[in-house]
């Protein structure tokens, strides 16, 4: 039963992801760059959810793995080939090793100490990338491709032109199909579909982990770690495994970011980026399968669309109102949109944490139950 359900979920999810350029068209978000961001941060959030959602260990340091993944991928582009496969593989491996190191130390402590330790590590990695390891990371300029890079596998490149990232010759930036459907001009590009396939794969892995005995163990750690310890089970290997898995997901996301746009900067490692993925997972619904992706899409959508709403747009919306009412509306709303969208995000996040700890998914479920009347039925059943 449950297996069938999961399979259905996966199929629906895959169909939705593959049709995303069409589905998002009416919302104004259906351009490749933003769609890729949805998918990449979706992967990042899925990975983070495996750690935070299942074990309850709140890490603020996952930006470091994202950044490490990006750096590894760009180095691969510089040294080996513009094909994204080796770059992605290396970024996952490097991020895995890095997270093993950081996880091994941070997981010696739990609770708040763990959060603070990961926070310190994230900031340390940021400082390392920003200044200390400049030969490796190119400091504040960020790591970029150059004409005289080695690229030993790519021999037949046109001279004097920076090559673009590709998958066995399919350039990531190329729009391969550009139809007009229902009046919307759609863009289907290779880059998004690479991200989409990896997102579906990540989602599948996440389902498998959720349903596995390993996932059950992780949930047990969240519920009561002390009891596990008393039963004679050492929880460290499990938490460390979860930490490394989520680190590898973050590395994959970082590698994908670099594959879509081959540069890597230290600002990707700042702990506030790690805070953003926390926002995504909590907003969407931690510990749920689909929640993290919802949260990632939600935040990235707001970041790119909401932040473009300025006073002129607002006036346009309420043009039918009398002018004084119009002005009042715009004065009240404008601090919350445009450049102030972070304020909305922060406030929304607080509201979710305070009133809806299960996130948007939980909210949707509650609304759904309210409509179908399941609550009342359950209450009745409880009375009997």
């Amino acid at each position, binding site marked *: 039963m449950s297996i069938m359900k999961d399979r259905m979920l996966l199929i629906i999810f895959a169909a939705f992801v593959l049709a995303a350029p069409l589905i998002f068209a009416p919302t104004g978000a259906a351009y490749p760059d933003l769609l890729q961001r949805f998918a990449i941060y979706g992967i990042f959030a899925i990975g983070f959810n495996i750690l935070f959602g299942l074990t309850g260990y709140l890490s603020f340091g996952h930006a470091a793995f994202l950044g490490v993944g990006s750096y590894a991928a760009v180095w691969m582009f510089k040294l080996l080939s513009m094909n994204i496969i080796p770059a992605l593989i290396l970024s996952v491996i490097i991020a895995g090793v890095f997270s093993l190191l950081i996880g091994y130390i941070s997981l*010696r402590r739990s609770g708040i100490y763990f959060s*603070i*330790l990961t926070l310190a590590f994230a900031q340390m990695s940021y*400082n390392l990338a920003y200044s200390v390891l400049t030969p490796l990371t190119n400091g504040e300029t960020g790591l970029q491709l150059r004409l005289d890079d080695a690229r030993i596998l790519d021999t037949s490149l046109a001279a004097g032109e920076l090559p673009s990232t590709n998958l066995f010759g399919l350039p990531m930036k190329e729009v391969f199909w550009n139809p007009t459907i229902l009046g919307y001009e759609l863009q289907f590009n290779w880059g998004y579909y690479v991200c989409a396939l990896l997102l579906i794969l990540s989602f599948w892995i996440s389902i498998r982990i959720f349903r596995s005995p390993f996932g059950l163990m992780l949930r047990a750690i969240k519920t009561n770690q002390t009891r596990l310890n008393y039963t004679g089970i050492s929880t460290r290997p499990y938490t460390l495994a979860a930490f490394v898995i989520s680190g590898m997901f973050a590395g994959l996301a970082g590698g994908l970011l670099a594959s879509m746009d081959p540069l890597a900067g230290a600002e990707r490692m700042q702990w506030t980026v790690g805070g953003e993925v926390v926002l995504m997972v*909590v907003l969407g619904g931690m510990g749920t399968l689909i929640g993290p992706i919802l949260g990632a899409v939600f935040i990235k959508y707001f970041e790119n669309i909401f932040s473009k709403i300025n006073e002129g747009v607002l006036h346009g919306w309420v043009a039918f109102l009398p002018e004084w009412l119009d002005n009042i509306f715009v004065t009240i709303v404008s601090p919350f949109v445009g450049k*102030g969208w972070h304020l909305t995000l*922060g*406030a929304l996040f*607080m509201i979710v944490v305070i009133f809806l700890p299960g996130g948007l998914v939980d909210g949707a479920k509650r609304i759904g139950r309210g409509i179908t009347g399941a609550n009342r039925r359950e209450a009745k059943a409880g009375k009997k």
Partner: protein
Amino acid sequence: MDAILLQVLNGLDKGSAYALIALGLTLIFGTLGVVNFAHGALFMLGAFCAVTFSKILAISKVVIDPEKTDFLGNPAKIKTPYVEEWFGSFGTFLIDFAVPVSLIAAVPVMILIGIALERGLIKHFYNRPHADQILVTFGLAIVLQEVIKAFFGANPIPQSAPDVFMGSLDIGAMVGFAENAIIYPYWRLVYFFFSLAVISAVFAFLRFTTFGMVVRAGMADRETVGLLGINIDKKFTIMFGIAAAVAGTAGVMYTPINPPNYHMGMDFLVLSFVVVVVGGMGSLPGAVAAGFLLGILESFASMPLIKDAISAIGLPSIDQIIIYLVAVVVLLVRPRGLMGKAGMMED
């Protein structure tokens, strides 16, 4: 020798800021058991109290002088701040001393903000997991800094120290080194002594007043104090207000050293957490000691001599990450921190 003294002095002002913020964090942590990610934001709010105060003082009456013209040929506007007009030379003094005087306004404002936060928000999170407390205060920090950004803009707003403290003190000459070997700005010295005063005031308050005694008892065993018929929640709320005020005053006095901007709180927050962890969760003397220690250590690591020595053995300069390295080593070797109790907040 003089170089070493100079580095110690250089580390003091940053160390003072770390110590003050970490002290407030530990106070909140020790009393309410809440990790306050918004504490950096409180530091920032304090700094912007000073900004607001000096802006209010600088509100001026504009008189157009028809006889003089400015460089564009328009009639010159002569601005006289109202305080100066009303109080004469005392007004001038007020404007000059805007930063320290704004402490008078900042302390009650910060205490009120602290109490409002505790009663309005954090109170509801005592029975929720620590992760939720971290999340909600993190969200609060974002909201606070975005509100400040909406009002004051994203650029740093420089504040000046009073004219009396503008120069530098030649400490080297005073203690027998060559002249100009150790020069230290007056205001940083003021900041150091100010932080010492605040820290000792907090310690004295906890040590020598009945209120402080009850709070310490509550920190040790909240339930028993409650059973004795003392309303410990009320006292802890006030302690939250005091902790907010400590962070706020630290922010006020820091404005001449570093022009305040809306994200200064987040920048200090991470380091203050590291300080608290190194000092030992819940230990007030530990937080203060670790604050100064790490501040001084940071300035030593950025010393040219040491930088050269490190690069000589083939390592990159570590002044940017020394604090984090120390934190990692301390946590591995002595997990409870320098002065912490074992098993604190380990669930």
